[in-house]
């Protein structure tokens, strides 16, 4: 009697790239949160990062569906699961960064309003020389005293 193999034994199952493409997208999304800190325009970044990570997660889900639900066609349950686990880590990081960085630190309700006069101050410049607001306002930009100062308060670099 001939020993017939069933069709399933002789079908060559293939790999799916979906879990890895998805992981790559999610990782890129998570890592792109660092772009504004190296000078990349920051405005679109928060949403792009999150959407990229979510899209990557979606692609990974497709990959998982392929290896688990279409296991006759696709192989790679273990590697797919590993990719999915890593993807979740990056996705969690992306979400955490998205919400954390949006944190508004201070009410600033009593900050100087438009139309209000600001108090004078004297602070050292980067060479250690004392400079006052009044001095800056009566200094010169080009050949004339400035129309206005642009005070840029920033968190500081460390």
């Amino acid at each position, binding site marked *: 009697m001939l020993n017939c193999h069933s069709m399933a034994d002789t079908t060559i199952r293939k790999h799916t790239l979906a879990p890895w493409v998805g992981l790559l997208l999610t990782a890129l999304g998570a890592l792109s*949160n660092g772009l*504004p*800190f190296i*000078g990349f*325009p*920051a*405005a679109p*970044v*928060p949403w792009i990062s999150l959407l990229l990570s979510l899209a990557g997660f979606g692609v990974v889900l497709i990959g998982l569906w392929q290896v688990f639900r279409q296991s006759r066609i696709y192989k790679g349950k273990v590697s797919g699961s590993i990719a999915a686990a890593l993807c979740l880590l990056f996705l969690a990081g992306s979400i955490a960064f998205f919400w954390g*960085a*949006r*944190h*508004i*630190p*201070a*009410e*600033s*309700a*009593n*900050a*100087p*309003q*438009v*139309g*209000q*006069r*600001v*108090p*004078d*101050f004297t*602070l*050292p*410049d*980067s*060479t*250690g020389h004392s*400079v006052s*607001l*009044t001095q*800056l*306002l*009566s*200094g010169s*930009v*080009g050949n*004339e*005293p*400035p*129309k*206005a*100062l*642009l*005070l*840029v*308060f*920033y*968190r*500081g*670099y*460390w």
Partner: protein
Amino acid sequence: MRGIEKSLPEFASQGILPVAISVDAPEVSENLRRKRGYTFVFLSDPEAEVIRHYELLHPRGGPDGTDISRPAEFLVDRSGTVRWENFTEDVRVRPRADELLAAARSIP
């Protein structure tokens, strides 16, 4: 701030003098200026006194829990009056130079 440095001529033609302020010590600011090629004024407010005066304090917002400033920009005219301001909610999103220039142009 790269945008500000790049647009310095435009700011100058508008009569605007950019001044950066943070809790960083003068040496730290000078390092940053040299590293990034910034030429405008950087002031140091290590005790966050001025920052507190302007109600911009971000308590324990820095590393090791140091008090720092929240990001904010002000256009202050010669009489010391605020003509425009911006308080950033998202620390990663700062006004671009062209937005600042547009604000500057709106001041007579």
